């Protein structure tokens, strides 16, 4: 429709402007991506190469770098656990963080957006102000607290403890995002449902929830990622190899960059990265709705 409207004004100037426009778009949005793409390409090519490659041309195509998918990994004399239980642990951790963040921050965000109570403004200010506390400060103190709580070496309980902490760190930001989604839902909509004879719960479920689903999606993405790539806490507090997660396993593969099996490292890195990229590609639309909510004004 817009094109039709523009039809009469098409002239040399417009064409030049269009060319300039796309040129600009390429310079700004495409060229800086070359490093990112070539890095991914390198990971992919390296993971199928028998030798370390210069640049991005493969040599000696092989699948042996991916052998961890079907057999345990052996480095030197040390055998590492099978990758699938480790992936399962990672998934447990990531989904645990996601679930907790979604549950807690949706409740909190709803209250902040929809309920009147004393100290509401101050609480909101406070939640933003938490961002002023850098994570580095928390690291040392969390280390003290966790040691004091005896989180070390409790198997799945340790992972649950880590979920609690990671979720706690994500919650201020998530609450704030989700609150934006609640804000964007007009009161009338909720009222209308209530007038139609829905119970409050049903109104919530059928009217409100679908409208904040994109918001829930958005915070899920961030919290999933933070759980998926958590390293330090798992490395420090998990004693038994049976409860390792992927970042810890990869750390054991990389070590101190001696004896690197670059091909397998690339394959592992890709294995670790691909789920997040797929996850994002399919759900990135949700991010477009951050703070904006479901309804156009």
């Amino acid at each position, binding site marked *: 429709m817009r094109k039709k409207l523009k039809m009469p004004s098409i002239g040399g100037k417009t064409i030049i402007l269009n060319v300039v426009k796309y040129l600009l778009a390429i310079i700004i949005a495409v060229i800086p991506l070359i490093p990112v793409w070539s890095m991914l390409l390198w990971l992919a090519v390296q993971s199928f190469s028998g030798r370390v490659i210069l640049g991005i041309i493969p040599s000696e195509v092989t699948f042996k770098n991916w052998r961890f998918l079907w057999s345990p990994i052996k480095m030197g004399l040390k055998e590492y656990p099978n990758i699938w239980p480790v992936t399962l642990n990672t998934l447990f951790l990531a989904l645990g963080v996601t679930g907790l963040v979604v549950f807690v921050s949706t409740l909190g965000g709803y209250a902040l957006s929809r309920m009147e109570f004393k100290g509401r403004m101050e609480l909101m200010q406070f939640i933003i102000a938490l961002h002023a506390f850098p994570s580095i400060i928390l690291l040392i103190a*969390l280390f003290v607290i966790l040691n004091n709580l005896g989180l070390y070496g409790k198997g799945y309980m340790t992972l649950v403890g880590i979920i609690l902490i990671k979720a706690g760190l994500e919650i201020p930001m998530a609450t704030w995002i989700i609150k*934006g989604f609640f804000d964007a839902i007009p009161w009338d909509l909720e009222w209308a449902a209530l007038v139609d004879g829905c119970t409050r719960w049903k109104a919530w479920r059928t009217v409100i929830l679908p409208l904040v689903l994109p918001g829930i999606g958005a915070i899920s993405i961030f919290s999933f990622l933070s759980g998926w790539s958590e*390293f330090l806490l798992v490395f420090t507090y998990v004693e038994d190899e049976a409860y390792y997660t992927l970042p810890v396993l990869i750390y054991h593969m990389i070590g101190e960059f001696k004896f690197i099996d670059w091909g397998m490292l690339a394959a592992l890195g890709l294995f670790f990265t691909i789920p997040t990229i797929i996850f994002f590609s399919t759900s990135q639309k949700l991010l477009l709705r951050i703070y904006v909510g479901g309804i156009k004004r």
Partner: protein
Amino acid sequence: MALKISRKMLPWIFLAPMLMMIIFSWIAPVLLTVYLGFTDLSSKNFLDFIRNFFTENVHLTLENFEKIFFAKDPYVVEALTITAIYVVSVLSINAIFALVLSIAIAYFVRNEIVSMLLRVSWLIPRIMPGIIYALVWNWFIDPKYGLLNTLLKFAGVPEALLPESWLLSPPYSQILMIVVNGYVGASFGMIIYTAAIKSIPTDIINAALVDGASDFQIARHIIVPLLKWPMLFVISWQTLSLLSSYEYILMIWGSGGGGGYAGIARAAKVMVWSLYSYSKAFAAEEHLYGYASALSLILVIVGVVLIITYFKIFGFRRLMEPSRIEV
């Protein structure tokens, strides 16, 4: 009566889980750090401290702050300068470059699939797990094996301008530090801005098009003004994030292993304040938890001052609703 109380209580029931988790993950550590900043806690007395927070082996002292404020630690001034360069440069990528980028992706490129592909690509640095991101950067900048120098030569950069080592030679090392973090930060700005651009009512833009405005004029006179608040939000939020971010620097400059990365990061002039604090706590052999806490308390003070300033300048209500479009 009972109903009234429950009315009053209801919000707090909803908020309770959130508050509890915030207390556990944020408030307790912060309070503890304040205490630690005034102690000489290190690996020498750490085990005693875990058993008893008020053990006699941990001494209360002001020495940590003396070291910082009276420049007894000669590195404080340099770390401050580097942090300032780092925050300001990455911030300009995050806030200004990301704005241009978002207009290009979300408005100039009309093809939905191309636009989507670009968005996902720009998100890759953020969603790629940190160690892998650092690993591929280490490959990319390698003067022999990596592509960076080849690409730059291909783009016409004279060889004399290329450093022998991107890791070591300032200002190249600092450029690297900024770019590595810039890629990650740009996507944050992009998420906020594209969301805001997509929510601009189409009739406004169409009306301008009918009036014969070019896309550039629309970007300049309609989109940018509407993005004022999102931009202020991105700036204020990202300043605070950057002040405390050190992970990527640590992973890229520390990946050689074998210790001494703190010395190398210093020589490369990429030791930002938060990394300095981290290295005092976790990398130095003696683990100076007390001094590191004092160092990070300085960051807290800076952060709180900044937050208060932002509240004052931008107005709290606006900050609360960062990308609500005001038409």
